[in-house]
């Protein structure tokens, strides 16, 4: 590293650091303070209430419902997405007709599968409102009516709504991980798969004995990404679900409750307390994930 003149270093850092302190670090710091107050807006000055907001949070039914939904997302989202993505990536790279070669048209498939990733979540939400329309005119119900199934209220049935939303999240995420895993699989030396095949190893065993262990690092990263995504869900739930988090709270998530508590009910202190809770949930998950998934790295 070189020594730069102070004027040059300050000149290059001043603007980004200032912007970052004002809009990012400052608000994060203040959030912890506001969480300890009963602040309701501009006129009333905030009163210090200590941990009152957090005690209230423990008795808040909506809060626990939202946390429960995050736990469901935390299990379902990575499990379904990664299974599908690994499956498709394996088909693309090793599922071809040739000797352990890639499948024909793999670039085309990757382009199509990745596409939902570049669409805005809000746009995807509106798109799926039409797909899930409860009467016979929705795409999904229209397709099902061909095989004689009555229209289903995908987003209005409390037991179904959350899963309908999980399905959309999976729909959007799969392609990203297909591309990610595909790149990882392409980096595995061809000889490994070839010699396994010569030894009479079937594709399924090959996947579990060779591909997956060599890809484990990437799978871990993917798992952490999806786990962190499981603590969000704001945009898709806000746009797609009925009544923003409904029916009757059946799909609500913490970010949505934070937003609603702050900007609809003006309970800024309580909303910040929820934010702090969300922060600790995310951090706990990240720390656990890093501990659990740590494994010997296979060099190749």
């Amino acid at each position, binding site marked *: 590293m070189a020594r730069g003149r102070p004027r040059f270093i300050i000149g290059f850092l001043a603007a980004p650091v200032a912007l970052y302190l004002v809009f990012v670090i400052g*608000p994060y710091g203040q959030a912890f303070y506001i969480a300890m107050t009963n602040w309701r807006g501009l006129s009333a000055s905030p009163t210090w209430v200590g941990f009152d907001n957090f005690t209230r949070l423990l008795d808040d039914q909506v809060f626990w419902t939202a946390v429960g939904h995050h736990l469901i997302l935390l299990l379902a989202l990575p499990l379904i997405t990664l299974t599908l993505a690994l499956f498709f990536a394996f088909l693309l790279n090793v599922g071809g*007709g040739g000797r352990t070669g890639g499948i024909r048209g793999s670039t085309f498939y990757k382009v199509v599968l990745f596409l939902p990733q570049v669409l*805005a979540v809000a746009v995807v939400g509106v798109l799926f*409102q039409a797909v899930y329309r409860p009467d016979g005119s929705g795409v999904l119900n229209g*397709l099902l009516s061909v095989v004689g199934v009555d229209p289903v209220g995908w987003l209005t049935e409390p037991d179904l709504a959350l899963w309908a939303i999980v399905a959309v999240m999976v729909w959007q995420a799969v392609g990203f991980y297909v591309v990610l895993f595909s790149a990882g699989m392409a980096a595995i030396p061809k000889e490994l798969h070839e010699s396994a095949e010569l030894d009479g190893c079937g594709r399924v065993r090959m996947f579990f004995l060779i591909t997956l262990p060599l890809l484990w690092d990437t799978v871990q990263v993917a798992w952490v990404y999806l786990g962190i995504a499981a603590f969000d869900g*704001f945009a898709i739930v*806000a746009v797609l679900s009925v009544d923003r988090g409904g029916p009757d709270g059946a799909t609500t998530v913490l970010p949505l409750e934070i937003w609603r508590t702050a900007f609809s009910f003006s309970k800024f202190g309580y909303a910040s307390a929820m934010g702090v809770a969300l922060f600790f949930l995310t951090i706990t998950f990240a720390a656990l994930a890093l501990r659990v998934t740590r494994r010997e790295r296979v060099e190749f």
Partner: protein
Amino acid sequence: MRRERSVLSGLSHGALVIWSITVILPILWTFLSSFKTNTEIFGDPLALPGAIRFDSWGRAWETAHVGQYLLNSVLVVGLGTAGTMLLGSMAAYVLSRFRFRGNRLIYLMFISGMVFPVFLALVPLFFVVKNLGLLDTHTGLILVYIAYSLPFTIFFLAAFFRTLPTSVAEAAMMDGCSETRTFFQIMVPMAKPGLVSITIFNVIGQWNQYLLPIVLLSGGVEDKWVITQGIANISTSAGYQADWPGLFAALSMTIIPVVVVYVVFQRQIQAGLTAGAIK
């Protein structure tokens, strides 16, 4: 053996084709529905439109202000990404290549921003922007976009600058080139592949942002809204005004440019978006 392989290949194609249809069908259906009448839309969802009608596209562009929203998005994302890249690459360069007191601290401060959920900052952020008089302005939104894009941009670019050889910059300095000029005329061109990836990452991230616009651009300034909040709002009001073809036209208008850009730059976009996970 050969037969077995072609069966396997067929099954693989089958699975991939099914998922491809799952991806394309909703988008294609939206596009086709924009040409339908309201009656057709509430009829058989799998039927094709009776005729190609473009009036719904006109309504979406004019009455539903989709044109305005798209323009606003282009403006905000253009300036937001340009600002992010300029400030981010400057900070990343200094932090990765020069030794000075506080370097590590500033770097860690930027990186820590990747760990915090933005929802934690939401309430204070709203008031910071409000107190600066930037609420309901594009300037406010752009500055916030830049600030929240910096952590990942700096993390990624600092790692990238570290991989570049130092000799070229040193030679330039020997020849009397100033530090600032060395950065803009020598380091930036050398860092082009990294800059392209992260630019794509930021353009897509900022274009798709929904939370920050709905918090920072209130209902009172509908003419300043960006496309994501505009589309989400049309969908909630479509129930009352019952202009479904208009909604589908608005959706198509939003999706098609993105798809076209994506197909043209798919290699760079896939690389740009997955770059963060591979690092």
